[in-house]
């Protein structure tokens, strides 16, 4: 399936901003089952742009805007091809056997097995893990499925109870949160169980009739996780929906937690006091590339 994602972020300033420097993680990374056919980044006012890969292999664009401006607009246009995820038919490994390889794994996947900024190994998390610990004869993939389903059942989806700077203790305390919190919490449990788990930021494309488009606001921005399953590699799971990530989950960036993958982060100078941010997302399913309003040939490859 093909998706076109138009992600527009508008920053407004009460007084002119200048010497603005931002790091943008909006170009979807390539991964098994997902390909970026085209990508274009547009910045208003004019910005100098360089790109590089960060330590997790994500695409980063660094923007430099010098002139005074009252508004900064960052438009990321992506054309993504996403295949349906593979069934988990890899050889099955019970937990007991899996843990025998722990020493080596804890080195090679160190980042994704240890606490991180939003995934501290707190006492409340450890208690939760104890309630949901793996059985030694349980298959690793089954355990991960069980955890994301269980987390979905235990916690309420409640926008507004947490914010982007909340670590997993907030959802544990509040009993509810958003996709980011569900992801952090599940990642924490999986890491404690010895299963490498990483945070994925991206989009969840709405299921629409072809050609039917409607504005999504920020709603389609989504976060889930990937767990490393023996012999299968990194497999996506979505605790907000209690199951595996599907062909509408479009990955943009991965990291230890949200702190590694904010879509736009940066600083600017201004005598003003306030900055506002508005995000609008538009995801459509072009029927074929010819009818796509975004000509792939015009995209920055």
């Amino acid at each position, binding site marked *: 399936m093909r998706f076109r994602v138009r992600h527009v972020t508008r920053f407004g300033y009460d007084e002119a901003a200048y*010497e603005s420097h931002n790091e943008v993680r909006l170009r979807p990374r390539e991964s098994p089952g997902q390909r970026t056919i085209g990508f274009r980044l547009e910045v208003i006012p004019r910005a100098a742009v360089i790109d590089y890969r960060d330590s997790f292999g994500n695409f980063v664009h660094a923007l430099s805007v010098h002139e005074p401006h009252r508004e900064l607009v960052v438009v990321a246009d992506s054309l993504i091809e996403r295949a349906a995820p593979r069934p988990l038919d890899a050889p099955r490994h019970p937990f007991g056997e899996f843990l025998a390889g722990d020493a080596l794994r804890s080195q090679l996947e160190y980042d994704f097995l*240890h606490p991180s900024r939003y995934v501290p190994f707190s006492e409340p998390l450890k208690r939760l893990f104890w309630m949901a610990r793996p059985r030694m004869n349980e298959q690793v993939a089954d355990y991960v499925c069980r955890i994301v389903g269980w987390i979905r059942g235990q916690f309420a989806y409640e926008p507004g109870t947490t914010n982007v700077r909340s670590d997993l203790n907030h959802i544990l305390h509040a009993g509810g949160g958003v996709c980011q919190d569900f992801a952090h919490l599940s990642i924490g449990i999986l890491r404690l169980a010895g299963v490498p788990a990483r945070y994925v930021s991206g989009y969840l494309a709405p299921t629409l009739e072809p050609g039917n488009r409607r504005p999504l606001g920020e709603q389609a921005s989504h976060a889930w996780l990937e767990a490393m399953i023996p012999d299968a590699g990194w497999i996506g799971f979505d605790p907000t929906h209690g199951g595996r990530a599907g062909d509408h989950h479009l990955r943009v960036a991965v990291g230890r937690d949200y702190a590694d993958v904010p879509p736009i982060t940066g600083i600017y100078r201004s005598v003003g006091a306030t900055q506002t941010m508005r995000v609008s997302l538009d995801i459509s399913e072009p029927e074929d590339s010819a009818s796509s309003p975004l000509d792939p040939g015009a995209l920055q490859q």
Partner: protein
Amino acid sequence: MELSTTASQAGRQAPVFAAYRPPAGMYDEMFSAAGGPHRWCAPVAANLLEMGSAEFASLRAQAERMLLRMGVTFNVYGQTEGAERIFPFDPIPRIIDAETWQTLEAGLIQRVRALNAFVADIYGEAHILKDGLIPHDLILESSQYRRGAVGIAPPGGTFITVAGIDLVRGADGRFYVLEDNARTPSGVSYVIENRLVTTRLMPAALRASRVRSVEGYPADLLASLVELAPGGISRPTVALLTPGPFNSAFFEHVFLSQQMGVELVEGRDLVCVDHKLWMKTVYGLRQVHVLYRRIDDDYLDAVVFRPDSMLGVAGLTAAIRAGSVTIANGIGTGVADDKAVFAYTPEMIRYYLGEQPILPIVETHLLREPEVRATVLRDLDRYVIKPTGASGGYGVVIGPRASDAELAQTRKQIEAAPANYIAQPVVSLSVHPTLVDDGAGGVVLAPRHVDLRPFVLMGARPRVLAGGLTRVALREGSLVVNSSQGGGSKDTWVLDAPC
């Protein structure tokens, strides 16, 4: 040969040098175990033997006056005399023979080449981790690891342009590496300053001993920086970035920028525009191609590191990635001087260079390993304990000198976070005859512990300052030579190879 041009020959008192006894069980830098001076020290020692207490006292007083005057010159912001720290200076020079220096120099260059290869690897493909030579967590948990530097490839792969390698000499007379300084090592201005003093106080001895000069260091530093400029720039603009006058090494920043003839700048003098670094001048913006920075990574760029920092310049990391500017030392070089990583440096030399290490290191035990920790904790009072991420002698506990309460506290800290500490045996540092007060208004010579910090520059080719900073622990029996902990310094004479 005269030693002091001003010491009064007529007023000579009883020679004090004859009373000097090299202590047993330690290497004396001037006298051999047999009692006489080392061959290479003989001419200087012979002259010292002639001098009386009053002459030594006069020598020291002159040196102090000169340093004070130079200190005032350095003190451009006109602080009061009390606020300015004068590094105590001992006028008896430390002498290293040509042959010993030759080996040291080769060992230092080898070491800094390996450290550079290591840093480039860590922020590149990280082969050394994947090959299992160094545990991943040792690097990923290091306070000096900078994830924001991954993927940066500076010209020539040189991350460490300026290195200060701390050496000590054991009882066997061999030099051992005690620790590396790969971030913003300081002290080189003392080396040049000290030489200015001895040049005035004992010009004849200096000339007669054929001592290699140190005054070329600023030119060598500038040449190294220029060689690392981004490709295609024939006449790069170099600037020195200081955190400002409140930094303890500020006078060195002023000194080096003046000597090199480059601008001394603070973060507020710089701006990044379009991924290029610019310096604000009265004629407008001027592009900077090489930045010799003397501020820590954390304060360098608020976009990537501490967002509250005003000391650096926002957007610098992106400018480095864009290839428009080189900074020295590069971002994240602290992984190479982490005290735990130090234990792996001999392996590193074999791994990256395929060579055997020329310089041995002081035995280093990683307390993160349970068996090692158990052994060390059993005899904690026999080890030196160091925090892995610190520098400048902070947090170091010397077992045999520590009180029971300090040892108990150290034990608790180690048990709470074992990976943050290493242990080294107490090295019986070499000693050097040093002028000390005799308690009756005069001076006598007494053995005091010394170390050596040579400076290595890595431009297109390596350059090593002949000698380095000899630090001396002025308190009797003290092993701590850090300037922040009451140490002084000596001029270091490297003798020219005989023709």
